[in-house]
């Protein structure tokens, strides 16, 4: 069962992947092993594919570095839940095929270390006997995500969703 990794408000992309560990600095093959190196050094070793990241407000502020969410994707993260997102991070998540769910209530309800089950298309999240409904992504994003990512969508159709 996927595990919840819960972080606080205003987690920036330097927290998610410090600049000195960019693929450009340490190589494409190992940059993801430095995810949350300052904030939570055990994260990259212990995280399992399918685990869920939970953030508070203004998730992913700061640098536009797509390799921050890319490190998460390489570690097998497919969904993030936050109270709110910084905009570049939001776009980067969608572009990489990580679904950015948004919910104040679910973030407050979830605890670090919880085991949960999340249906990525419907947004239904189950913890033990409890059931939470996350709003599914908007159509523009869902269309892209159904092809894998916006990149995959553009490659297949040669235009943007809805264009």
């Amino acid at each position, binding site marked *: 069962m996927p595990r919840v990794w819960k972080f606080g408000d205003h987690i920036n992309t330097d927290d998610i992947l410090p600049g000195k560990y960019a693929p*450009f600095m340490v190589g494409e093959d190992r940059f993801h092993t430095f995810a949350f190196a*300052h904030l939570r050094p055990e994260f990259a070793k212990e995280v399992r594919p399918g685990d869920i990241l939970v953030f508070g407000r203004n998730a992913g502020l700061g640098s536009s570095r797509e390799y921050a969410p890319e490190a998460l994707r390489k570690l097998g993260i497919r969904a993030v839940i936050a109270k709110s997102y910084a905009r570049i991070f939001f776009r980067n998540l969608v572009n990489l095929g990580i679904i950015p769910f948004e919910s104040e209530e679910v973030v407050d309800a979830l605890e670090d270390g919880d085991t949960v089950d999340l249906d990525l298309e419907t947004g239904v999240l189950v913890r033990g006997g409890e059931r939470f409904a996350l709003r599914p992504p908007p159509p523009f994003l869902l269309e892209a995500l159904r092809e894998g990512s916006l990149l995959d969508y553009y490659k297949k159709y040669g235009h943007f969703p809805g264009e």
Partner: protein
Amino acid sequence: MGMTLAERILSRKAGREVRAGELVVVEVDQVMVVDSIAGSFFKRLAYLEATPRYPERVSIVIDHVAPAANLEVAKAQKEIREWGRKHGIRVFDVGRGVCHQVLIEEGLAQPGWIVVGSDSHSTTYGAVGAFGTGMGATDIALAAASGRTWFRVPESVKVTFRGRLPKGVTAKDAALEMVRLLTAEGATYMAVEIHLLDGAESLSRGERMTLANLTVEAGAKAGLVVPSGEILDLYRVPEWLYPDPDARYAREVEIDLSTLSPRVSVPFYVDNVQEVAAVRGKRVDQVFIGTCTNGRLEDLRAAAEVLKGKKVAPGVRLLVIPASSQVLEEATRDGTLLTLLEAGATIGTPGCGPCMGRHMGVLAPGEVCVSTSNRNFRGRMGAPDAEIYLASPRVAAASAVAGYIATPEDLASLPQEEAHA
């Protein structure tokens, strides 16, 4: 109902009237790529089996780690040069400067343009009335391949600066005050539309760049300064490029420049802005003057004015990194550089320098740095417990002389031996 500047630019580009909240796909006038993500950019274009649709609308700048600090970076930068030659793409190489400064100097951001850059501080282009915004490698690759990108038309926050800055107070202090008022998430998904009135229109292009640069620290998608003052002399500003008086804003904020004092942003959040008095006396190990926020000639001159005839305190490293080769050249010609060197500064290659903790001034555990840059996040410049205080070039220079956080005015009251005069 009238239009905001963001609505006006995106409507113009979309070829129809669009309003905040709508999704639009628009042509982009310039795509800016920095060295640190160029590898991802090339990989994504290769995946799309595409090359830039309009090669002349793409620029690559080698600035984030310039010159190369290690073998990985050297290989990546070699690939940039080869790729640029192969596809006929402009590459600004080591030493030309920080991407945003270079694009402005080269005229690659113009009033009314849409400029997307693979760096969050691409909001800087708003200084000249361009809709500049930062994006990740995938969006940037799609923009290069298609010549277009998608936006949700942003709501706007109107920030009006009035009056004139008191002596010793700078655009950086005004920008930090703006971030404090808006908070780190106060303009998320929005454009910050900056109006300069009642004397504030005299702010230079460089000062406007400082303001637009820091709007992203409030979460802004773009930071658009309504063209006025010297922008009207330097650029051909299209007659349609103005917001309507009855445009609708999500929020309106007024800042009276004449009431401001020097500000410092205290770790680890940019919106944690305080008056210098709150942290005066904090011991300093390194002072960094430079970056896309404050590495221009006027910034170096402001630092030199403070440093003239003084010496950097023992045990303090003063790093000065001009924002571009042009700035370096001008600072050499007018004597600014000599003043800085005589005070004990060391000069680095024009570029981003240690701003994101990769080289040329990485901080050790427990160290304290006063920086004229734009981010003081935990671990940003090196060790996770190193502290970064963001300030103006004047406060940075004064802190280098005092050995602790200080304003130039504080230096006058230092004992002679302490001031190292």
